[in-house]
Structures are given as structure tokens and as C-alpha cells.
């Protein structure tokens, strides 16, 4: 597969690879994809009370473009607001990495991972608000 230099660079030097504490209240975790389809992405966002993404980490099982897509989105969202992160479209990722047409689904998966991580964070916040105070 002919990949862009940028994609290869992300594969070889992935940014923000690792894990955050998935039980922490300020961490939202998105786990998307399926092993049977050959790609699974885990994206974690640490979000402060002002709605700013303080940290982002990823782990990905998948091909080079899946790894590069997830690495790229951690870079894109870090230090940004939830609103900005929610506005990220897969086409932005696909363009940035010049994904070949058969690899577009990797960028879709990365977009889904952001949405899933934010949804998880929001659910945690809602649960906390609903919980009876001690």
C-alpha cells in the first residue's frame, strides 16, 4: 500500500500512545471497531471542568492507517474544547494523512472514537450529578 510520508511518520512515531485511568471521573473512554473487522481503537480523553481536553491517549489494533489516524486525532484534540473535538470530521483526518480510498474507514473509526469517548465522559458526569451527595 502506498502511504503518504505523514502517515508513515505517525505510524513510526505515534503520538500519545498509552492509557489513562479509565475509572477516573474526568476521563472518557471510547472503544470502537471490532477484532473481527481487523481494527479496534481505544481513545481516552481527560477533560477538565472548563470542558478542555487536557490529555488524550490512544491504543489501536489495526493497520498502519488505523494507527496513524488515531495518533493524529490525539494531536488534534489535545488542548482543545469538547465542542471542537465533536466537530472533527473523518474527512479532515483522511485528507491530512492522504488515506487511500480503501482506508477511509480508518478515519471514520477515529471520528467514532472521539464521539464515543466524549459520550462516556458525559455519562460519567451525568451519573455523578445524579448520585446522592454524601
Amino acid at each position, binding site marked *: 500500500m502506498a502511504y503518504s510520508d505523514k502517515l508513515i511518520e505517525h505510524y513510526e512515531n505515534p503520538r500519545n500512545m498509552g492509557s489513562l485511568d479509565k475509572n477516573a471521573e474526568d476521563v472518557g473512554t471510547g472503544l470502537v471497531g471490532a477484532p*473481527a473487522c481487523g481494527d479496534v481503537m481505544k481513545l481516552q480523553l481527560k477533560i477538565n471542568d472548563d470542558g478542555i481536553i487536557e490529555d488524550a491517549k490512544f491504543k489501536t489494533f489495526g493497520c498502519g492507517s488505523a494507527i496513524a489516524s488515531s495518533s493524529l486525532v490525539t494531536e488534534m484534540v489535545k488542548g482543545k474544547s469538547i465542542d471542537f473535538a465533536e466537530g472533527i470530521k473523518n474527512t479532515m483526518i483522511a485528507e491530512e494523512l492522504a488515506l487511500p480510498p480503501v482506508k477511509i474507514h480508518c478515519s471514520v473509526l477515529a471520528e*467514532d472514537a472521539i464521539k464515543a469517548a466524549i459520550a462516556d465522559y458525559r455519562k460519567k458526569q451525568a451519573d455523578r450529578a445524579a448520585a446522592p451527595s454524601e
Partner: protein
Amino acid sequence: MKLPIYLDTHATTPLDPRVLDEMLPYLTQHFGNAASRNHSFGWTANEAVERAREQVAALIGADPKEIIFTSGATESDNLGIIGAARFNAKKGKHIITSKLEHKAVLDSCHALESEGFEITFLDSDPDGLVKPEQVEAAIRPDTVLCAIMMANNEIGTINPIAEIGAVCRRHNVIFHVDAVQALGRVAIDVAAMNVDLMAISAHKMYGPKGIGALYVRRGRPRIRIEPLIHGGGHERGLRSGTLPVHQIVGLGAAAKYALEALTNGENDRIKALRDRLWEGLSKNLDHLYINGSWEHRLPNNLNCSFAYVEGEALMMGIKAIACSSGSACTSASLEPSYVLRALGVDVELAHTSMRFGVGRFNTEEEIDFAIELITEKVRWLRQMSPLYELVQEGVDLKSIQWAAH
């Protein structure tokens, strides 16, 4: 040691320099047309062609008259299967093959479906082998042909060809065997194995690309086929077209050295390198799975899954090694290997499969380098793998509700 290291001998093999030396004069001074009967240029070319025919026949225990030169194994599979099916269509229109066959066989069979043939695609056992009992059970009164490969091009498993041949002969079914991967790696005797048609390629046994052969039995029973390519009546009318003499000389020379490889220790040396590769990897890494029978396997083949590491991602990491993966991401279709799925390998593991093919020119130093590099990259990619992390935490991946996409 020169990089990259070539470990993909199921795809193709390098041309043996000795084979090239034998070919070259037939591109320059001996350029005659083997069909020219009235001058020495033609005679010299024809002698070379007939010598090559003997060398190919010797490799598989055939008579030289039973060898038809073709452009390669794809053409040989087409000619054997379609040619025999069409010639014998009056006897019946049922064909038996297996789901693990090469595409040249599968698609030849599919092409015949449009001519009213019915095809039975046999499953393999979990070891990747087709059993003679399966073939026997599938035979019907209208079965005319059975096509089963000798050794699989992905997992290197070796089918019980002699036993399947006996079944076919007993039921008067023509037996076509694609032997491409087995040539020079497994002793072949078409008479003892009751093979009627056999597809042969030069470039998987250190010969040139673009040349192959089809063995067509002439003894009892005599196998009749219809040609697919019409013209000047070359090759007893079964395959017209001016013979590419230099290529045929290359096929013959490759066959000569392939026959030697069966007895001169070459295969033992290759098997020792293959075993060294597997032992090194399995000592360094956990969660490795061999795909297909280990016992009934070509000496040069290693096909294993590195669980939780996607195949294409691994190949990107080990660019210094030329090998191959059954992962979907290495194919245009985004479907993982149909061979692995046919033998029941979990689709998850199919995505993580790698195929290595050791060859005549590999060294221990190269294998040790490969072990180190693969180990390093698998460890790195597993660190990056959410699946490996979940497994380390004790989570059963099958218990997770994954969203297929």
C-alpha cells in the same frame, strides 16, 4: 548481510544463477524457432526444448510426451480443468474441488459453472487438509473431474494426493493437481499417485516467470482435453504458440535442480532454517498460533498468527523482511485470507496472520535477524494494542459486545 531479506518464496523465488546461465545462449546465438524443421537454428532450439521436456518429466515421474509447455501454472490450471471438463462434458458435468485451492483453480471452476457445470467445493479439516473420504463422499455418477492442490500456497499444508488419486481412479474421475508449491519440496510420482493432470510453474522453483507446464496423462487411462489457445498446432495441438525456447530451457534447468534438492540435503537445510525461525519467535513471544498442520507441511513454510497485532501494521514495521500477510488490509477486498477462513481459523486471528517462505539462498544470519526484528516489532505493536491490554487485564475478548463496521 543484504537487506531486505527475502522470505516470500510462496509468492516467487529468485532465479537461480545456474538457471540463468543455461538460458542466456537461447536468447542470443541459439535464437531459432523450435518449429523450424529445415535448418540448424530450428534443430538446436528443438533439441533444447526436448531436453527441458525430459527434465520436467523426470521431476514428476512422467514421460516427456506427457508434458505440454504453457505460460505458467494459471494457464495450466485453466487448460487442465476447463480443457478436460469440456472434452468430457458428455459424460457428466460435476466437478469436485476444495475451498483452499488457488484462485486459478477456483476461478476456472467458476467459469465452468456458466457452461452448466456444477461444482462441489469441499471444506478442509481444521489442519487444512482434504481427506480422501471427503472426495469419495462427494463423487456422483456425473462427476468428471476432481481438482485438489498438492500443497497450499498460504499455509503450506500437503494433501494426501496419492490417497485421493486412488479414490479418483477407482471411480473413473479425472484427477487434476496443482503442484506448484510442492515442486522440488515434495517427491512427486504421477504414476504412483494416480494423477491425470498436473499444473507446474517455473518461478516457484528458482526458474523464470512466464513459463509453466501441464502434465497430461497418455498412458492408461489416456486423458483427453480440449485446447484453449488455437493456432499453429504446437504442443500436439493442445497449446499453440511459438515456444519461448529460453524460458523452456529455464524451466527445464529449474526442474533439474528441484529434483536434486529432494536428495542433496537442500530441503533439510531449508526446513532447519524454517524451524529455527519458528523456535526463535515462539521462544520470544506468547500468543502465537500456527495455521494448518505442522506435520503435513512444506519444509519452507511458516504461517502463524501473532494475536492482537494486525498483519499489515506488522509488515510496515518489518520492512527489512519481505513476507506476506493474510490480513484484510493487505488485500484490495478488505476480506482476510479465504484459505484461513476455510479451515476455520477465527477471523480475528486471520487478520494477524503472517506467511514466511524460506528459500535456497537464505542464511542462518538472515533468520536470526528476522527473529530479532519481528520480536521487537510485535512487542511494540502489542504495547499499542488495546486488545493485548484487555487480555493482560484478564478480559475475555469474546465477552465484549463489539460493533461490527
